[in-house]
């Protein structure tokens, strides 16, 4: 079929099923949209009415090509030849319309618009509902209902009679009347038709009123926009073909914000877009100063739900109103939107506040990273320190990224003495490779802490550590290299925790020289000394570092038992009454499995401690004896159960029963 070309005009029907082709030869073809089937062929120029036009207009001739071709609904094709428009039906029938000037065609879903320099006509196939009601001689139920209503208006009793006669199809009649009202352009006829429908409804109470209500809503809007001041001459079908938002948009393009708003309210659809468009044009056109403009905007916008201020602020920004932009952005509910915009206009403080308020850490980091690259270091530090959360997050970022120097700098500027020292200390636990670095780190930590009185106790601790370090260094020189380093069981080295064995770590990075003391804690150092058998050094250390008596004894006892130096242990126990009690001596020996040694100390223990301890090392006779002395019946029974010695068992049984 396409071989019949060339074509001067191609037009597709609103339904998309048919195509109208205008050949160069002047022949109009209507074919299916898959180009398979030919429905009709006509030569508009050979129509009798065309002949008549050509008499009036000498420019017309049979060979002439049309100005425009467009579908009118899905049923007919309109062809414009300048001042004459032909409507050509499916079976070759035609109607001609004449105009004063050249007419252009616009296809619509239900008809065709004809526009020329003066008038705007709309031509559509008369809708079925209107035909049913108004066709002369129509006997459809809808026509009868309308007729009945006319009688009612004339106060004629026939009204009732007619309605009753169509009782069965009354529902249809009502719907048809409502549809007809929708298709009708005249407001008074719309009213008559709707009243007729409403009249019919009184006889049919169960009829669903939704359609009626919707039609009223729609007609109200249609009649408003069709008014001359707006001039959106649209039919109901066209109106329904698009969502209401797009009609609102058309009104906004005409700057009719108030009407658009009212329609939104009427239809219960969100009006945020209307407000936002209004605000944008207000900002663009207003000559007022930024403050009063803000007041005006705020007045209108503050109560609008779910309004996005981003576009409005953007408009203010492009109009070079930075103050207004900032203030508007603060109204924006979505932080992720406003923070980048605030950053882009250089509002670092504000964007930081907003980011933190949002609770979204990502946004805070966005601000931190952006301002770090945009601002001078001094300004940046001032910004970060203005907010505690930001300052903490910045510290975390630096630590994670290993930017210790930057962080040190920051802490120094902000007088964060404790945190400065914290950096130095963690460096010691995890990084410093040499003893010298280790020492200088502690010195710098002491310096920072010394600046504030409330870190008194911490400064004391570090001074003690420095003293210990010097003591340890001296020990390193005194101990011969041939002596191996002692493994002192440490709280398991879990990755990333502060409780690490620094001595072990230092030795890992060290080649050749092995530190036996440096990096150990005070108690570990004392323990090592005793394990090496340097008892005099240990007691020197006790006085020098003011190790509490009890702690000293506890560590010494444990270390001596570990060293299996029971002579020294006994000396410790005998020279003076130990402040920890003999129970500790005994239980440390028991823990080491040295029961014989333990029994020596058990004998020195308190009476009520003895039985349990004897029992633990399996000295059942002694245990029973002591238990009896302190009347510990429960333990006695237990011993009775455990023992293999029948005489002891019998003895216990008799004693227990005696008690």
């Amino acid at each position, binding site marked *: 079929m396409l071989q019949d070309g060339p074509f001067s005009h191609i037009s597709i029907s609103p339904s998309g099923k048919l195509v109208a082709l205008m050949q160069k030869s002047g022949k109009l073809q209507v074919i299916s949209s898959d180009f398979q089937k030919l429905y009709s062929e006509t030569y508009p120029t050979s129509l009798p009415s065309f002949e008549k036009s050509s008499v009036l207009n000498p420019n017309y001739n049979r060979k002439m090509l049309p100005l425009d071709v467009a579908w009118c609904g899905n049923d007919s094709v309109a062809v414009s030849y300048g001042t004459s428009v032909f409507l050509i039906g499916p079976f070759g029938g035609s109607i001609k319309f004449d105009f004063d000037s050249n007419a252009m065609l616009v296809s619509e879903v239900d008809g065709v618009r004809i526009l020329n320099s003066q008038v705007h006509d709309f031509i559509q196939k008369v809708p079925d509902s209107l035909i049913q009601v108004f066709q002369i001689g129509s006997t459809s139920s809808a026509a009868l209902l309308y007729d009945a209503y006319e009688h009612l208006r004339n106060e004629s009793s026939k009204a009732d009679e007619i309605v009753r006669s169509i009782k069965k199809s009354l529902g249809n009649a009502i719907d048809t009347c409502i549809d007809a009202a929708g298709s009708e352009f005249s407001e008074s006829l719309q009213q008559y038709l709707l009243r007729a429908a409403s009249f019919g409804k009184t006889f049919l109470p169960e009829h669903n009123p939704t359609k009626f209500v919707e039609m009223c809503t729609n007609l109200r809007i249609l009649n408003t926009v069709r008014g001359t001041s707006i001039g959106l001459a649209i039919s109901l079908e066209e109106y329904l073909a698009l969502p209401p*938002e797009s009609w609102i948009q058309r009104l906004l393009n005409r700057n009719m914000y108030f009407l658009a708003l009212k329609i939104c309210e009427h239809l*219960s659809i*969100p009006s945020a*877009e209307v407000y936002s468009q209004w605000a944008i044009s207000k900002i663009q056109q207003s000559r007022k100063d930024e403050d009063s403009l803000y007041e005006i905007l705020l007045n209108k916008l503050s109560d609008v*739900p*779910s309004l996005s201020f981003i576009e409005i602020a953007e408009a203010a920004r492009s109009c070079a109103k930075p103050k207004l932009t900032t203030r508007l952005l*603060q109204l924006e*509910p*979505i932080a992720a939107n406003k923070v980048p915009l605030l950053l882009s206009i250089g509002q670092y403080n504000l964007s930081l*506040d907003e980011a*933190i*308020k949002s*609770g979204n*850490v*990502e946004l805070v*980091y966005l601000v931190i*990273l952006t301002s770090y690259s945009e601002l001078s270091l001094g300004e940046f530090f001032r910004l970060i320190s203005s*907010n*505690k*959360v930001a300052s903490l*997050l910045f*510290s*975390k970022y630096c*630590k*994670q*990224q290993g930017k210790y120097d930057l962080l040190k700098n920051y802490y120094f500027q902000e007088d964060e003495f*404790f945190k400065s020292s*914290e950096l130095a*200390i*963690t460096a*010691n*636990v*995890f990084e410093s490779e040499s003893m010298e670095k280790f020492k200088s780190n502690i010195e710098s930590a002491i310096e920072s802490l010394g600046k504030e009185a*409330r870190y*008194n*106790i*911490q400064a004391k*601790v*570090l001074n*003690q550590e420095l003293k210990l370090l010097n003591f340890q260094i001296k020990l390193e020189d005194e101990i011969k290299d041939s002596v191996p380093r002692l*493994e002192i*069981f*440490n*709280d*398991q080295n879990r990755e*990333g*925790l*502060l*409780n690490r064995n620094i001595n072990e770590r230092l030795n890992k990075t060290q080649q050749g020289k092995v530190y036996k003391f440096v990096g150990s*804690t*005070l*108690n*570990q150092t004392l323990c090592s000394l005793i394990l090496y058998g340097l008892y005099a050094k240990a007691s020197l250390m006790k006085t020098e570092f003011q190790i*509490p008596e*009890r*702690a000293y004894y*506890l*560590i010494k006892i*444990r*270390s001596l038992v570990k060293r299996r130096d029971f002579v020294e242990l006994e000396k410790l126990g005998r020279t003076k009454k130990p402040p920890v009690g003999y129970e500790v001596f005994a239980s440390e020996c028991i823990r080491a499995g040295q029961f014989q040694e333990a029994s020596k100390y058990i004998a020195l223990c308190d009476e009520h401690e003895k039985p349990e301890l004897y029992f633990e090392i399996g000295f059942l006779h002694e245990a029973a004896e002591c238990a009896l002395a302190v009347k510990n019946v429960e333990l006695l029974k237990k011993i009775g159960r455990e023992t293999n010695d029948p005489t002891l068992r019998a003895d216990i049984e008799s004693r227990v029963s005696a008690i």
Partner: protein
Amino acid sequence: MEADTEGIDFLELKEDLKQDFLKIVDSVRGVKILVVDECLLGVIDQLSDFATLQEHGVQKLYKLEKENNYSNSETQNVLYIIRPLLSHVRENIENGKSLSYNVKLVPRRTILFEKALEDMGVLGELVIDDFPLLFVPIESDLLVLNSENSFKEMYIDGDYSSIFYSSQGLMDIQSKFGLFPRILGKGDCAQILSENLIRMRKEISAVDSSSSLWTGWVLSTVFDSLIIIDRGVDLITPLLTQLTYHGLLDEYFNITNESIEIAVESESKTTNNFAGSSSENNINPTTSETSRALSKKKKRLKLDDRDAIFAQIKGKSFMHVGKLLSQISKDLQVQYESRHNAKSVNEVKKFVKGLGKLQTEQSLLQSHISATSSLIKFTQSEEFGKNLDIEQNLMSVGDITKSQLLYLEQIISLGNLWYEDSSIVEMGKYRIDNGLAVILRLVCLYFLVKGDNIKKKNYENIYNLLISSFGFQHIITFQRLYSLGMFGSFKQDSSLFGSSYFFKKSSATSKRRASDLVLKEGSETQSEGNGDLLLPSTKPRNPSHSDTFGFIRRDLNLNPKTDNYEAESSAKTVVNGEISDIYGGYVPISLRLVQCLSGDNFMFDNRGRNTGSRTLTGWKGWEDAAQNIAGQNVDVKQSVLYGAFGSSNIPDSSTTAFKQQATLVMFLGGITYSEIAALRLLSRTHNHKYIIATTDIINGTSFINQMTAVDK
């Protein structure tokens, strides 16, 4: 756990996650290697099994490890599912392999992570996307966010990511189950969370109402409220030794990915093929040769409700567990014996059919018995007994005896010296006997309970002993603990020791906020322009009593029936249990707060007031207690009116006839297994369902380890 979860279908949530996960896996075409963050393994095990993964083209599954070379296999595609941790970047940059790398970040991609990749110069070679995995339903009543160290991040680092993720997760739940009619809670971070929830609602309406599809919020018919408990309001509970089976397992073995590693005796080696270990073979990656060699001695025991025995005993107080296990063992024996009574062929068939299940249960029972025997050894040790005595003295009397204080000093002095040979340490054991974590738990507990009434001399003594024993570096640890009020806060010298370390300029604002107890309507809580956010605090703002803990103990009845406690723990309570059993007589503050806020009658009965039916009264009646507990009181009523069109005719919650059956309890900053058990017990005995959501599951040791961690 029990069958009364109707109406609350978290399985649906899980199904959604499952679909999302497979979609992620499918997003890389062809065969691929899957590399997963260690802490996500458990989650992925929940969402899928290896067979399904194979169907979706996964050739091998690896755990993300330092310097592991995944690329020696023949496939070209590598899919990483990891958290956006910078340490991952540092440790996993490979050199010069032309593979196609896909990275999915859980729960979202972050600026810092991408910047780190960019600095390394590899950003361009990766395909990065996020996998928004928030709350994962581990059990039918337990949702976990999987954000480790959330407490330290919130209270020490000022990093509120976990609050943000929690609020996103809760928004997801709200969009599925409807708005929580009321948000209640306690704590400064709880306040931030509730503000987040309201703001996010505003943001969502701002986005969605621009399309006409928006239908507006509906009040939940399932949940009557959301109760947010901030860990900062109850620092005591995590420090206490847990006494439930589940809790003790966590204390002793440290449960990771819902499983523990235990040593198995040689004779059970033959019956190694049971549910727990088979799931190991499936999902646990073939990391390296060494772990395979060890697997003969070590066994992973999966701890979830698929294991019927575990489901039965997990929440029980450990003193009953032995009895229960022997009962179960007897029952199994009876079932085995039933084969002799089988008369017909059908009965034999039936028996054989059930045999597989019996064998599985038998081997599970074996594992539980061997775990239990470790725990028995532990609970009978001198150390356990003495430490528990200290805890219970503090909880019931508020102080410890002179000899207990001496004992405390003793274990501090000897704390870091070898105690047992590291070679003897039991396999899989996590706890270090009287190590720093154990000692700090006791010390912090002591300071927390004593509050301001610590003598300075006493405090300095403990401080110096700890330093001598564990090293100078712990002045950092102690400063952190101090800022949380867990380490010596005495009145007299506050100026000297800087109680203002955390609160320099905010005292004026804090007063205003603290007095702000008035019920707020959802839409008005946003006080715009209040940029200077408070740092959260774990100390009560305006305590009315000097002995705050003592007051709370009496007011909230934390030690019910101390006198007739022995008499009550009869056979009946073995089956049902009492809340106070779970911590040996003490009821956690967190739990009491939940009871107050959810309008549990029990609390009112205790005060001689019976309100008849359960009603949500918020903080009414508990103002005194609330004033002496840290953090702000949260009480927000949500209504559908705000932010949506067209839904204004839905009635307010107060007028609705339906009765909501459940309360969502959100633990911000971690929950212990024992608290979970206690909430479940409440669900059972008080006829109201509690669903638990939490950022992470903690125990005392992991809680203390957060404080001793080094920021890196």
